[in-house]
């Protein structure tokens, strides 16, 4: 049971590695850009002024705003590179003839993608914390991390929906699911409010993220059955 799963993971890695590494590069570059810009402003205006502006300016100074769509783009890159080959070339049919259960197979694919995204998010978070803790005291770091959390969670939602949509056999249902995904993502990609603003929504967002992970199993079953 273990060996075929490892082979599966390796196959998925081959499919996704360039897209994933490319997006990681973009994410790291964005992170470096954010902090270079902040340090530049500090050099120009003085650290205390910048700190006070970040804390108390109205409209709020969201110095990390460039990072908003990075986890989402990473998820899209991984999701598309992983699932689009399956459906365009109908390769999924071959995979489904492997000696592991269909559900295990699909769950393995999805699990691989989620692990990849988690690694990416951990990298982003680690890098962000490293720079932020160096520059700012905890009174800024804590609310800013709370503001970042919905964006990091949005990557999982996007990936799960991409997997679900890709596996869906019906064309118009794909469009319908994309519309649903778009509006669900609007809850996650919030910004323009002071740091730490959406902390109260995080439990619900985490719940939504966890619940969304099963969606691909539902549509892949319909794909497997050959329904229209």
């Amino acid at each position, binding site marked *: 049971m273990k060996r075929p799963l490892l082979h599966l993971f390796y196959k998925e890695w081959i499919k996704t590695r360039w897209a994933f590494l490319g997006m990681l590069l973009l994410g790291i570059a964005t992170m470096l850009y954010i902090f270079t810009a902040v340090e530049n402003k500090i050099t120009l205006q003085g650290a205390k002024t910048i700190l006070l502006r970040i804390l108390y300016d109205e409209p709020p100074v969201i110095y990390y705003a460039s990072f908003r769509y990075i986890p989402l783009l990473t998820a899209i890159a991984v999701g598309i590179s992983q699932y689009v080959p399956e459906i365009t070339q109908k390769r999924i049919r071959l995979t489904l003839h492997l000696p592991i259960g269909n559900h295990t197979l699909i769950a393995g694919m999805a699990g691989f993608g989620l692990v990849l995204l988690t690694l990416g998010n951990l990298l982003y978070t680690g890098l962000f914390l490293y720079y932020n803790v160096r520059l700012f005291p905890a009174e800024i770091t804590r609310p800013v991390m709370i503001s970042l959390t919905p964006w990091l969670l949005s990557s999982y939602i996007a990936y799960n929906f991409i997997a679900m949509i890709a596996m869906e056999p019906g064309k118009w249902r794909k469009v319908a699911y994309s519309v649903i995904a778009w509006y669900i993502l609007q809850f996650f990609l919030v910004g323009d409010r002071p740091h730490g603003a959406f902390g109260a929504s995080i439990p619900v967002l985490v719940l939504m993220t966890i619940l969304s992970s099963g*969606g691909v199993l*539902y549509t892949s079953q319909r794909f497997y059955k050959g329904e229209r």
Partner: protein
Amino acid sequence: MLIKIIRIIAVLFAVTAAASVLPRLYDTTFSSRGGRGHKDIRYSEILKDFIISEYVYSSEKSHTAGQTIYYDRHGKSYSRDSVDQLFLLDNVSQLAYEGRFPDTICGMAVTPELVSSEAFSQYYSAQPGLYYGLCELRDRKSYTSRSLEPRDLFRITPEGIQFIVCETNQIDEEKSRRFTTELTRLDFRFPALRMWTSPDKSVSEAIGYYVTDSKNYLYCLSMELSTPVVQKLEKPDNKNIRNVNFGKSSDIRALLITEDGDTYIQHPDLSYTRLALPSSLGKSGTLNGNLFYRIFTLPDRNRQTTFVFDRDFRLLDSCSLYYSPRPQSTAGVFKELLLPLRIGQTAWNGFYADWSPIKRFIWFNLILTAIALYYKRKNGNRLSDAFTVTDLLLVVVFGIYGFIGIFAFPLKRSQKEIVKSKSADL
């Protein structure tokens, strides 16, 4: 089995998405025309009573016109000119420009400069605002020298007060120790619950910060020529403080709202006067002041109450303005019928679900359930199946959102089930 549960979760996602979008779409398409009259209330020092002004719309053929009417509490109406006579303190600049400003008002000798210097307006709130715990402590004498400009921000942690030098993001140990010692000397229990300062730069420099320690005692923290100046303040009637607003006029040092909603004025000599106002919990009001009066306005559900105090903060009079509720338009009625709830997300309070009154939407929901039931039976789903019942319950509760959801995610039966039901029919 697992798949069917996953499908229900997917339906709930569809319901959430629909419930956040469709109400907005409906509002954009069928909006109600504007034009509610705007009401305002003022206290006349001549009349010693309130005058209410209202902007009324009169819709003629194709264009709306409006005009302001004035009346008092007893319904007597006033013309524009007579109203102008009654508000001398408010119209200082206009009257002075026209040279019509009187020498005495209500027996007191006045000049335009005196009156306009006594006029001020400010907001105050019972709700503490955005608070990060990191603030700038400016020196009282910072206007004398550039070297007294602080380069750090401070916070009060369980270990004591910490001054963080911004450039290096390190704690200035020596300065922090000096201030912590001074605070400890006055029995300050760390950490601080909350700190307040005036938004006005010069007042903030002069007063410093009002800090509540973990035992809810009130302190005033400030700095003079780099030495800490800490003062323990009395609490108003020994009540815990909810929020502090600093005053804009010379006779009000601060406005304190206590935990039970009472409002206290703190005078420059640090004594308190309790204001005869109703509980201000959860509200923010306005304070307008002039030569004779201090006028507080508090909002409420569908009204606004104005309280007039004299300069010694004794209540003279009060009056409530009621806002007539907007009559419900047909679009509004249909909205309650069609859309049972609205899901949204606000910044500090997280998610909310706004339900319409049940009586309105339940009938439409039941009609939709009947349609759904018809389609389910046509597809061969029997009511004995728990998941079909769940689907129908979703339509009953969520109405049109549930209807969209269960048809977006089809529930086709597997071969096994079809064979089983066929054999059951035989």
